[in-house]
């Protein structure tokens, strides 16, 4: 991460990312260790010194070329000495270091055992929380309503939630209105529509009238995506089919028992149904909307206000873990790390198929889609606006909605952007982006028009 590199290295670009300790020669490493380098990290303080010095250097030399020229001509140690002459680097570092120390180190984070929670879970066995100075216990939880209540009751400091849940909680839908916030999205894509094996020949949604489908929760992307998909194919999800909220593990059992005809569920559940031979993959959720968010990392505003540094450290750990999980070469290792009973508790084969994207489709074929599930932490506010339009479309919210305000209050794009920049990642410049769902473009600036443009929706 560039946050941690030596700002006095003339050859290093301060703005781009770089991993610590990747020096080109031993001499350079020694020199770095002598001045301000942090790899190996000697102490928190040293690391912050690096961050502060790098910020100062960046301010003094907005142009990289000028900084490099300056450093080349005078040398790093002279530069540092000169800099500390007229800038109280030590004091600034102390202030920064104090601001960085977490108020609360022992934290509890709740999760639901599905692959969407991968960054939250793997951050524990792979040491991402420890790296950011936290001692986090990840606690498996029975269901979405329970995780909501336990987070509201402060048994958990932060939790894994479905992306629309913090919005729903903040608006007081299905719970008391308590302000919640989302600093990071967990995963994008990674869901699927699975149908019972007997429906092999009913691949056209138009034939699905009267079928029963399971979704994990009312306030879930699964609900909105399935409704969207059905509606685009001319079925009214409220009258033509039955949608039931079913806890994910029970979906496979219900599918086997013939209580439901299919489900739009989080992975590993989809793959598990295939693995056990009860269903087949009709469609990856990515084919409905490529890059859709699914689950989020959420905390209450109260926790953020009371322990801003713990919260920032948590967010950094999650962003770090998400970045690690987004790399294809790490996925096998992650699958093994999160499979044991302490975490997801599922066969490694199933998790590997989900994470690597090479999977059995349940119809006798093996398919490959490296982006079946992906991880991207940035909490786009346009995602929140889209979810609000769907809540409005299906009658979950009545009356007028202030899309922008709600989205900006719940999805902390600005704060995350700042953190990501500090960590040397390159977050997007805007918090809004347009995207297409099943070919239909969504313009986050015109949510009302978007809602009105759907023929099938709940009359309100």
């Amino acid at each position, binding site marked *: 991460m560039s946050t941690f590199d030596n700002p006095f290295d003339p050859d290093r670009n301060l703005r781009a990312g770089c991993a610590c300790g990747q020096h080109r020669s031993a001499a350079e490493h020694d020199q770095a260790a002598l001045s301000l380098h942090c790899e190996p990290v000697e102490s928190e303080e040293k690391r912050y010194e690096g961050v502060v010095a790098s910020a100062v250097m960046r301010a003094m030399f907005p142009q990289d070329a000028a900084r490099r020229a300056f450093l080349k001509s005078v040398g790093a140690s002279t530069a540092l000495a000169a800099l500390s002459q007229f800038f109280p680097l030590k004091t600034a570092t102390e202030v920064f270091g104090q601001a960085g120390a977490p108020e609360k180190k022992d934290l509890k984070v709740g999760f639901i055992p599905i692959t969407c929670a991968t960054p939250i879970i793997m951050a524990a066995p792979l040491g991402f929380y420890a790296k950011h100075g936290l001692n986090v216990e990840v606690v498996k939880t029975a269901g979405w309503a*329970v995780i909501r209540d336990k987070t509201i009751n402060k048994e958990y400091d932060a939790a894994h939630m479905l992306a629309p849940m913090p919005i729903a909680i903040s608006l007081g839908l299905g719970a008391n209105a308590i302000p919640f916030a989302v600093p990071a999205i967990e995963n994008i894509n990674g869901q699927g529509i699975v149908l019972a094996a007997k429906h092999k020949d009913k691949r056209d949604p138009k034939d699905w009238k009267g079928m029963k489908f399971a979704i994990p929760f009312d306030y879930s992307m699964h609900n909105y995506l399935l409704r969207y998909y059905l509606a685009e194919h001319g079925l009214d999800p409220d009258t033509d089919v039955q949608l039931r909220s079913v806890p994910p593990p029970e979906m496979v059992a219900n599918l086997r028992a013939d209580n439901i005809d299919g489900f739009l569920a989080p992975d590993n559940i989809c793959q598990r149904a295939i*693995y056990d031979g009860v269903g087949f993959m009709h469609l990856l959720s990515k084919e409905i909307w490529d890059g859709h968010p699914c689950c989020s990392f959420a905390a209450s505003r109260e926790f953020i206000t009371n322990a801003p540094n713990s919260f920032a450290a948590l967010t950094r750990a999650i962003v770090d873990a998400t970045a690690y999980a987004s790399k294809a070469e790490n996925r096998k290792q992650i699958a093994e790390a999160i499979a044991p009973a302490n975490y997801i508790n599922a066969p490694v084969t199933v998790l590997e198929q989900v994470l690597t994207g090479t*999977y059995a489709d349940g119809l006798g074929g093996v398919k490959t889609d490296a982006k079946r599930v992906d991880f991207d932490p940035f909490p786009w506010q346009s995602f929140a606006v889209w979810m609000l339009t769907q809540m409005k479309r299906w009658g979950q919210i009545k009356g007028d909605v202030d899309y922008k305000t709600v989205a900006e209050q719940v999805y902390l794009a600005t704060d995350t952007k700042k953190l990501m920049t500090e960590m040397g990642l390159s977050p997007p410049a805007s918090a809004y982006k347009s995207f297409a769902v099943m070919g239909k473009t969504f313009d986050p600036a015109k949510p009302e028009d978007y809602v009105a443009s759907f023929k099938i929706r709940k009359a309100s």
Partner: protein
Amino acid sequence: MTSSLRLRAGLVSIALLAAFLGVWHLATRSTGATTTMSPEYAKLMGLTATQGKSAMPGPLDVGAKLWEHLKRPFYDNGPNDKGLGIQLAYSIARVGTGYLLAVLVAIPLGFLIGMSPLLSKALDPFIQVLKPISPLAWMPLALYTIKDSSISAIFVIFICSIWPMLLNTVFGVASVRKEWINVARTLEVSTVRRAFTVILPAAAPTILTGMRISIGIAWLVIVAAEMLVGGTGIGYFVWNEWNNLSITNVIIAILLIGIVGMLLDQILARFTRMVTFPE
């Protein structure tokens, strides 16, 4: 009971068990590979799909798994994965706490109500309404007001085990034979002494029967409560294994829940026998 009867009963029990295991084994045999699959595809699939293995585990699978659990009952792999011994201990501790609290409330209260016909009549409608409520119906309310899931679980145990004890105590105290109380009265025994030396021994068998019913209910409820709140306990274990669709472990948990429930019941049955007297 003659010893030959006992022997014959034992033999029938064993025969029944053997027959049950035999039928179970036959019913869950794998049917062999049903469809042909490419090896590449088969590698990605579970045994149910490839070998035609029944989704229901056979007795041999369960036995092997049970042995595995019994070999290391107290391992601790972090907050979400603990040995069966630890899980059972958590459940028993929860049941014990909730149950003891219920005993502390129900028996004195029952005594009071039983000795006073006025209170008995006045409180009767409340007790009648509260008694039939399913203990799990209290759960959302408890979670909402107590704001702590483990205390909520204990509260649910408390609330479900209090009624049988309370009602049995009231009944036992109220139905002590009038002659005995009158004798005590003629001898000018004080009220407190009368309660402890006459009424308590006389009502003890009924009270203990109530306690025995209560512990049974408490043990029934803890599993459901732990499935809801999660974290620790045998109910959580069932839920966690259900999550992994591991029916084998669920069956093992069912077996253990049965055994522990039986032990708890037997302990109270022994106490009941100790205080029973011939009339």
